[in-house]
Each structure stands twice: as structure tokens, then as C-alpha cells.
């Protein structure tokens, strides 16, 4: 059962990822990216981590994909991608990719990853444990991340602010 779900998810995720790269229409590429991110959320659900899965959906599909698609709509130019590939380049690319896959596969196959087994005593998923962990052991990381995000937002505001239209845009109400 899980295997069929896994295979289906893999087909959706990898297929839409390839589609998002290969699609000539940029908007379809953005949609395919969103579907690919949904597939990744599906992996998290299979891995018994619904909390991460929901945040994956909320952040990547609900925010990042919307942002990308919105940007694509604003700068919509039909021929941003010029076709440069020739037959030789295509074959070379495929060979290179296959070579990399074989190499990575052989390295992975000889590593200890293959000897890992499923841990039967794995702790049951618990949101409260995540919350406790975030506020105790991982609190410095959380604070640093929050500061990074805050500085990013402040930087974006400082960059986007235009003082020349400030005066005309008097109090909104």
C-alpha cells in the first residue's frame, strides 16, 4: 500500500519537477513547481511528519508558489527562453546526467545507508514535543532564525521604500 503511494508520489513529484524545468510557458512551469512541492509534502506525510507536511504546504504552495506565479504574470514575456540546444548538446547532457547517476548510485550503494533499518521503537509523532524542543534545546537556533528573517524583512522594506512618493501618499484614513 505504502509502496504504491510512494511510487505515485514520486511520479508526481519528479514528473512535475521535470515539467517545471522543461515547460516553455513560464506560468505552467510555476504551477508544476507548486505541484512538485505538494508531492514533497506528501513524502513528509508518508514519513509520519504531518506537522512538517502542513508547513510545507502552507509556506511553499501557499506563499512561495503564489509569489513565483505572480512574478511570472507580471513579467510575462513569451520568448525569455531562447532555444540553444542542439542534438550534440542534448546527447552530452543526457550522458552526463546518466554518468552522474551511476556514480552517485555506486557511492550510495557502498555506503552505510543501505545497512540502515527501520527503527521499530521510533517515538510517536507528537506536536507538543516539537513545541517543547523548539522552546528549550533549539531556542537559540529559533532566535537566530527569527533575527535573520526580521533583518531580511527590514532590509526589504528599506529597499522598497520610496521617499519621493511619500508626501503624496498622505494618511490613508
Amino acid at each position, binding site marked *: 500500500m505504502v509502496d504504491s503511494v510512494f511510487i505515485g508520489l514520486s511520479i508526481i513529484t519528479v514528473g512535475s519537477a521535470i515539467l517545471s524545468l522543461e515547460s516553455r510557458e513560464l506560468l505552467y512551469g510555476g504551477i508544476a513547481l507548486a505541484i512538485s512541492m505538494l508531492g514533497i509534502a506528501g513524502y513528509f506525510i508518508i514519513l509520519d511528519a504531518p506537522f512538517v507536511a502542513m508547513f510545507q504546504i502552507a509556506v511553499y504552495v501557499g506563499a512561495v508558489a503564489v509569489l513565483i*506565479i505572480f512574478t511570472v504574470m507580471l513579467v510575462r514575456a513569451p520568448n525569455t527562453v531562447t532555444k540553444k540546444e542542439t542534438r550534440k548538446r542534448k546527447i552530452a547532457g543526457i550522458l552526463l546526467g546518466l554518468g552522474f547517476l551511476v556514480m552517485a548510485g555506486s557511492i550510495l550503494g557502498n555506503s552505510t545507508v543501505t545497512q540502515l533499518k527501520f527503527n521499530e521503537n521510533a517515538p510517536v509523532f507528537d506536536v507538543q514535543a516539537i513545541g517543547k524542543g523548539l522552546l528549550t534545546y533549539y531556542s537559540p537556533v529559533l532566535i537566530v532564525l527569527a533575527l535573520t528573517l526580521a533583518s531580511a524583512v527590514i532590509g526589504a522594506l528599506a529597499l522598497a521604500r520610496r521617499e519621493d512618493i511619500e508626501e503624496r501618499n498622505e494618511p490613508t484614513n
Partner: protein
Amino acid sequence: MGSLTPDFRFGNFVGSIVWLVFVVLALVTLLILPIIFFVLFYVPLPEVDGEVLTPYLFFSMMVDPSRTLPVVQFFIHTDLFRAAIFPGFGFAALIAAATIFIERKLLAKMQLRVGPLYAGKVEGIFQLLADGLKLLTKEIIVPSGSDKPIFWLAPIMFVSTAAAVVALIPVADGWVVADVSVGLIAAFAILGFFPLIALLFSWSSNSKYPFIGGLRALHQMIAFEIPFFLSALPVVILSSSLNLTEIARSQNLFMNIFILPINAFVFFISSLAELERIPFDLPEAESEIVAGWLTETTGMLYGLIQLGSYLKLYALAGLFVVLFLGGWSGPQIFPPELIPGAHDSNLPLLQMLALDGLYNPVTVNSIFWFMIKTIIVILLMLIIRGINPRIRIDILLHTGWYKLIVLTFINLFIVLMLIYGGVIGPGGLISIR
């Protein structure tokens, strides 16, 4: 003979009926019977009371009153029934349909109009049926320059996303389609799809009014998503769970709205904005941009989006009830037995009438109170539509970003103070559990 057509012939009439009967018989023998046999051969039948449910057993159970109720009970507790009929899609769609009719009638009465009047003789009760038939039979016009796949898929996506939110709402203890441990975050994550769908649909219409409407929908939903999310945060802190069933169960002493009135207000306002209802219906502002992002919809595409938005209305009202109004808790008003003494009597028909074994007073009571509260919230949303004008977009964004977000924090700090002061929460003076 005034109502009949002048060239009416009785012979032709009888002939047409005979022809109809023949066609039905031919269909039954050629199509339906093979399908039934195929299903009986290949589909494994479920077990009821330790016996395999063959058609013979099924029919004998249907005839025998004392054996009918277990079968019904078995079907009520299947997942398919839950997803498709009771707490799931069918139930929500019924409420959505009722809401559409009540909204039209209520607004009409509020504005001294009559509303739907002719279909169905009595106060136009069949207006909805007529509208539905009209939408089903109308031609779907796809604009020539539109992006066809997205244009066709977006309304279906809209309905299915709304149904996915509905699936998370518990109507009674254990009566929920998907009892997810992170139900609240799941609801917010799924609600995050709507701006994407509105934007894509408005873009695919290839027309300027839909696109303006879609951009407005995007701005509005993203501006109100943050206060929407934040206003549910103290609820999670109070009940220390993200599961919606647990959140509702944790309010058996007092409803959250007594501790979190400001947050309930913010949640209500944000859900109005999320639903694009007046006063926040800028994406569909009909006096400015025709019908906003729905301008190019026709026929059943419009019907689907309408169904989806009313499903969403029910889902958000249900979410409000679960988060702030204590879910299904309420005084027990249903008797322990529908007909007193039916369980001990040996009359099968009486037992069947009393729904013996099927009728659970606690569950029925829970569903009753949940429905009452949800209907009150829905009516509140409808009344606001009747008495408010549409607000300007800059005021809307200002409200969302500056005012509501700040308002949510007031109650959050109050709750934290109460918890750390030892008044509520685990181990407090008023313990929730």
C-alpha cells in the same frame, strides 16, 4: 384541450410510452444487469455481523425490521459515508444550498424587497432548484484567448479545496472525516490554496476585469491570512493541542470566546475577508469591475465556484464554532430513547421507529448544538452583508496589516498572563481537563 398541442394524438402518446419502456428494458438487460453481475462476481462484499453481505442477505435484512438497523448502522460508520454524506460533502453542500436561499430571502426582507417569489408557489422555495437546473443546462462559454486547461480546472480545484476544508471540521465527538493530529494547521494550509486558484483563474480568463479582481483577491487574502492565523494561536495555547476535536473537547467548562473576545472578533472579520463577502467583497465588486474574477464564468463553472464559496462559508463558520464557541458542547436536551420503552418491548416495528441501537442521544445532542451554533454564525455573516457598504481597498489593506495583527496580540498576552499566573491551563485554578 387548450393546454395540449393541436396535433396531439393519443396513439402517438401511447406509442412513445411503449418505446420508452422498451428502451429502459433494453438498457437494463444490456447494461445494468451485466454490471450488477460483474460487481457481484469480482468485488469482495463487506461483512456485517460476521456474515458476508450477499444480496439475498441484504434483501432479507431490508424486509426484516430487526435486522435493518444493524445494516444501516454498518453503513453509517463506513469511511465512504463519512466523506460523501454526513459530516462530509453532502451535508455541507446541503447547508451551502440552504444558506444561498436563506441569504437571498433574508437580505430581501432586510432591504424591504420580496426576494425569490414565484418558483414553488410558497415564498419561492424551489428557486434554488430552478437556478441549479438553469446553471446545469446553460452553455459554458470559454473566452477565445483564455488558457483552456487552467480555465476548466480552476473551478473544480476551488470546490475540491473547499470540500477538503469541510472534511477537517468535526461536528460531534468522533464525527469527522479526517481526524488529523495537526488539524488546525491543515485547515490554514488548505485555505492558502484559494488565492492561488483565484489568481490563476483570473489570469486564464484573459480579460482585464477578472485580472484586476484576481489581484485584489490575492492582496486581500494574503493581508488577512496573517491575523487569521494569529487569532487562532491563543486557542492552541489554551487547549495545548492542534487537533480540532481536542480543541472542541477542551472547552467543556467554558467557551473560549469568554477569554478571547478580541481574537474571536478578529477571526470573524478575517474569515469574512477570506470568504470575499461584503464588506470585503472587493474581488467581486460588481459596481466597479463587473464581477471581479468571476466575470468570464458561465453556466456550471459559475455554479461550481458558487458552491465552493458557500462550502467555504460553512467550513469557516464551523471552524469559528470549534475554536471559540465550544464546538458541540451544550446541555443535553434529547431523551435517552426516542420512544420510551421501545428497547424492552418485543415489537420490531416499534423498535425500528425508535431507531433502537442506532439512536445515540449524546451524538444527536452534539450535532444539534453544533448545528445551532454554526447556523447562528452563518446568519451573523449574512446579516453583515445586509447592512454594510463595501470598503475601499486601501482601508481594507490598512485594516488587515496594521490593525487586526496588533489586535490579535492583546488577547495572546492576556492568555499568557493568565496561564503563568496559574489561573487557567494545566495545573491552574480553573483546570480545563
